[in-house]
């Protein structure tokens, strides 16, 4: 082997090997194996739920609501979720942003037609409601059109969001029973207020 070849052969092999391995890795997205980057919460996203009825509606509402709140607070949805999951007092800014985000979510679902009519939820709502049995039976006997005319779901949701003590809801987020009690009470009150206001406006 000539001395010049001896001088360049091993370095050439080394460069070839390193370039080859680097090239293969980069061609397979080497360097991009990183955790998911949070999406922009201000860009509308499609949310789905595996649950039906009130649970499904609540889940979609909360997911969209957190997006709206995070957008207002200039945070990612994930950062806000982790922040809210921490124990401790909530700031006024956080509570206001969450409430506004939930209202935005109601509007968006109404606009894109994903808000179910009240008649779809009435049976489940009555099962959870603390009402007289005869009254429950009477309401269940009403035709869907009457229920939908009497109860506007977006109005009920907006009232519920306003009535809910979000600070307390966030504090009790680990206590399912207490959370359900608070939400059910707020929903019942909102349905009543909504129906009464509608009757007043009709009269």
């Amino acid at each position, binding site marked *: 082997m000539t001395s010049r070849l001896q001088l360049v052969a*091993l*370095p050439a092999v*080394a460069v070839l090997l390193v370039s080859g391995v680097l090239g293969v*890795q980069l061609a397979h997205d080497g360097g991009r194996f990183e955790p998911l980057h949070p999406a922009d919460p201000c860009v509308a996203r499609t949310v789905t739920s*595996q649950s039906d009825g009130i649970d499904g509606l609540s889940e979609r509402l909360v997911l969209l609501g957190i997006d709206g709140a995070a957008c207002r607070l200039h945070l990612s949805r994930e950062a806000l979720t982790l922040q809210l999951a921490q124990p401790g007092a909530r700031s006024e800014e956080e509570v206001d942003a969450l409430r506004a985000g939930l209202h935005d979510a109601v509007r968006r679902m109404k606009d894109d037609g994903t808000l179910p009519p009240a008649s779809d939820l009435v049976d489940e709502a009555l099962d959870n409601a603390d009402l007289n049995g005869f009254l429950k039976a009477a309401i269940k006997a009403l035709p869907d059109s009457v229920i939908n005319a009497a109860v506007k779901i977006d109005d009920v949701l907006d009232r519920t969001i306003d009535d809910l003590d979000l600070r307390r809801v966030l504090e009790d987020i680990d206590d399912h029973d207490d959370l359900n009690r608070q939400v059910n009470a707020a929903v019942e009150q909102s349905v009543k207020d909504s129906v009464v206001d509608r009757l007043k406006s009709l009269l």
Partner: protein
Amino acid sequence: MTPVRRVAAPLLAVTVAMVLADSAVVTLALPAILFHLHTTVGQVAWVLIAFNLVLGVVAVPVAWAFARAQPRIFSAVGIAVFAGASAWCAGAGSIEVLIVARCLQALGGALALVGCLEQLVTVYGEKRGVTAWVTAGVVGTATGPVAGGLLTDAFSWQAIFVVQVPFAVLAVPAALAVPATAARVQDRHRPALRPNLTLALLSAALTAALFLLVLLLVEGWRRSPSTAALTVSVVPLAALAARPLARLLRPPPQVEVAAGCFLVAGGLACLAIPPSSDLAWTAAPQALVGLGLGLTVDRLTAQAMEMRLPRVQHAGWTIGARHAGVVLGLAILTPVFTADLQDAQVPAQEAIAALVLDAPLEAADKIEVAQALGRELTDQEGRIPDLHRAFADLDIAPEDRPAADRLERDLDAQLEAAATRAFRDSFLIGAGLALLALLTVLVPGRRTTT
């Protein structure tokens, strides 16, 4: 062949390999030691640092003392101290005791390394003796983490030290049986600065390869120590291929070392950017590192000792340079990857939150998953969490189990991605150290006038 040549000399070579393997042998056992001795990450790193620091510091004074002692007594005492300290390490009940025992093990190891060199030269002659000593050292350095991982997984971290005891005990009479005489040579040559500096920088870079890779595999990618040990065995296997390659291409020694440094740097850069946590992606980068190791370490050690007297004094300098390099590597890299792991927590938690929020599970199940994950993340503060427990205890409907399993796999992938990202800078710093080593080879030396 005399019994001394047939039995004693191989035992001395095994002792050299064991002492140098101890430099990194506990790397894969660190998580087990951390758990068993109820200590902190910062303290457990000293199990590794203490050994290398003591070996690096005492190597030259020990070599100086060797010239004034009986070689076989010197070796035998060193090996006996090494054996006793290894047994003490195995029985250590606290991290403080383990660190002290490791210091003593390094001191005995330094005596053994220096003594064994002279005795191997007595048995095999100058050239073959030095080659046997250097080769045993390279084999020990390259196979240490593999052996440590396999022993930890098969038995316990204590087994790493227990298995060294019988070999060392057998090596004591072997050392006494080799009638070496100390060559009373005045200090004729100055230490070879350039090869020792290159060796130190390269050792720091190789620390990145071995230490960081096993940590990434065990802590970041949650592989068992034995899987990690088998994975990193690519390095010693590739190192074996280096000699035939060098014989085939016959490069000048400096070119061989330069190419080796470049291969180590390239391998480390590739380890910084794996496309996924599939173990196969580590094979080729490790092969580059192994080839580089095989082309450089023995060649540099030989260059640092070649035609320099007294031999043991220059061997002491190479041992000192190598282990100072390991300590330098650990000192630079440990704070970097610890801080990067800390910084990786937020993106990892956000990625986990995103996947849980969008998971195809019932809302109640999502909340239960989130609560279980929250507990797991809190319990494992400062370390990469094991999410499996959060899913194992979940009380969900059987029809939702496939979705939960899929979510668990996705979350694990996020954690692996976060850990991989956290190790990136450290691997790149390791590559930078190897390039610095390359620079020491490429910078033209002073011309000697005749």
